[in-house]
């Protein structure tokens, strides 16, 4: 029972950075833009978060710095693909490389210095409930914030006029433009939201999860977040589900190593990546489910006529 609880809790925590990054990318893709640079934006957020922390800022401001850094670096991508109509694949890859470099540069000197991590909160009463309290009410605040963001993103996409406009722009930018929606401005905002969320996800890794700065510490989570959006078939609810699945894979792998399974560690470490492929295959075979919420204009450049 204790093992189950600890795996459950660890899974929820491991899923949190993925939820942030994937929810951000979901909004970006729903607007019709494909940003492959999540890994770079996450690393930038992680490094700037640590930098701000060691500069003496309180934790909440360190998170704000990480969010701003992610949004700012995503703006470079935005200018490239939205104003200069660059190939989105190439620009996203450039962002991934650039972000890796910038983060290594910013984070140099902080390597392996432990960060005083954001503490789990104690809710009087709730946290003390046996089992349930341990499983649900002893997380750090960002875990709960991830669910707040999930609720906000779902509400925004499906319950607000602006969300409808965003989806319309992703479906058919030409018609959206014709009826007066600001296509380019909306896409800029979406891209920056994606950057901010990736930055937050990265900061979660360096300020809560690990918690210290290590070069390339995201270890492919940015790419897994990208896969999650496909896995989720562009629906927020399934982003959460997918994140738990992948979080669970990561934790099972760690647990397997901890209890000394007679399998080489490399095989266990490969599990999350292999699982991503398997899940992608399963979901992609169902073309109908894939196309239902698919933003049709994804990765296609748009230039307003006139």
């Amino acid at each position, binding site marked *: 029972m204790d093992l189950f609880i600890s795996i459950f809790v660890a899974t929820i925590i491991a899923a949190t950075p993925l939820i942030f990054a994937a929810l951000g990318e979901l909004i970006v893709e729903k607007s019709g833009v494909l940003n*492959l640079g999540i890994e*770079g934006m996450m690393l930038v957020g992680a490094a700037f978060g640590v930098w701000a922390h060691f500069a003496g800022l309180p934790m909440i401001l360190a998170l704000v710095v990480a969010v701003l850094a992610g949004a700012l670096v995503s703006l*470079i991508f935005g*200018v*490239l693909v939205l104003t*200069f*109509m*660059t*190939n989105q*694949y*190439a*620009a996203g*890859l*450039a*962002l991934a*490389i*650039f*972000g*890796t*470099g*910038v*983060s*290594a*540069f910013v984070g*140099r000197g902080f390597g392996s210095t432990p960060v005083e991590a954001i503490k789990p909160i104690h809710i009087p009463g709730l946290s003390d409930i046996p089992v349930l309290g341990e499983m649900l009410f002893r997380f750090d605040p960002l875990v709960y914030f991830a669910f707040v963001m999930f609720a906000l993103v779902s509400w925004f996409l499906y319950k607000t006029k602006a969300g409808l406009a965003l989806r319309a722009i992703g479906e058919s930018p030409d018609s959206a433009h014709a009826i007066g929606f600001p296509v380019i401005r909306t896409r800029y905002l979406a891209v920056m939201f994606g950057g901010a969320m990736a930055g937050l996800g990265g900061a979660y890794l360096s300020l809560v999860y690990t918690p210290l700065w290590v*070069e390339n510490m995201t270890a*492919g989570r940015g*790419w897994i977040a*990208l*896969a999650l959006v*496909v896995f989720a078939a562009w629906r927020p609810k399934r982003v959460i589900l997918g994140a738990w699945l992948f979080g669970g894979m990561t934790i099972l792998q760690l647990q397997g190593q901890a209890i000394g399974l007679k399998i*080489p560690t*490399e*095989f266990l*470490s*490969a599990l999350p*990546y*292999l699982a*991503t*492929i398997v899940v*992608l*295959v399963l979901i*992609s*075979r169902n*073309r109908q489910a*894939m196309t239902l919420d698919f933003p049709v204009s994804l990765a296609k450049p748009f230039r307003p006529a006139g």
Partner: protein
Amino acid sequence: MAFKIEPRAEPSRSMAIAAPLIAIGLTVIISSLLFLSLGLNPFVTLYTFFVQPLTTLNGVSEWLLKASPLILIACGLAIGFRANVWNIGAEGQLIIGAIAAAGVGLFSPWQESVLLLPMMVIAGMVGGALWAAIPAFLKDRMNTNEILVTLMLTYVAALLLSYLVHGPWRDPDGFNFPQTALLPQAGMLEVFDYSYRLNTSIFFTVVVVILAWVFMERSFLGYKMSVGGIAPAAAKYAGFKASASIWIGLLISGATAGLAGMSEVAGPLGQLSSQISPGYGFAAIIVAFIGRLNAFGIVLGGLLLSLIYLGGEAVQLKLGLPSSIALIFQGLLLFFLLASNFLINFRIRKLTTRAL
């Protein structure tokens, strides 16, 4: 003052030449500002970065040695990119190619044979191509996004390499270092001069560049693949299947990446260890775009990016700058190149009242 962006009637030829120069110029300006902010003299730093590495014969040898795998891989990738097939896992295919080639070199019965090296070349190419065949199969049959699969398989390849050099393939006489035994002499590529590391693998690159150029610019199949990339509907109407592009694009790029891995292990490395590539597979993506998906452009792009690697090492050694500078350079250069391509197809005009 207002500006208006308008499409050109046809791509500007002068801009096609000027755009990369503008991009390089902007990269130099921004990085100079970065150096200034770090309290370094930008002229000295830029000299150390871009000029000094090429002032010695050893420097030139290293320059070509590093450019070679980048150009090799980028040529393969460009063929796929033109057809909208996005193999971004060349790094993984390089690793598998190196593993396959080293496996043949270390464990095959032809240890002293002149056939060993050709066998290793084949093993490297087949290994890389097989690794790329997985995403090709999944894309073709299961409609699975090749970007994600090639990338995920890169992590798996790196873990496989780590497993082999820590476990079954570890050199028993290697003091527990995670590396294999050295390859037999018959499995090593010849160097031109024993003082320098540049070896005959450079000929692979020359041959591949020429073949890639012929394939992309002069062959009907290459033409059909490009059409499929630009106008999928037209290609389909003309009876060209998208699945052919997927297979060809991935298998060729996998094979060239595998060949690059073989060249590394049978060249400067001489054995497998847990780190066999400084990210050539990823950097080659940049090279392909710098070269505008053209074989000869890729040669220039490869030479430029190789120089950035060397320069990064030079400023690290001589000026104590972090090695991440090279990555920032790569990213900036690619940003500016991509943005400057815009000038080829669009013009920016000052708005005058008459124009309104």
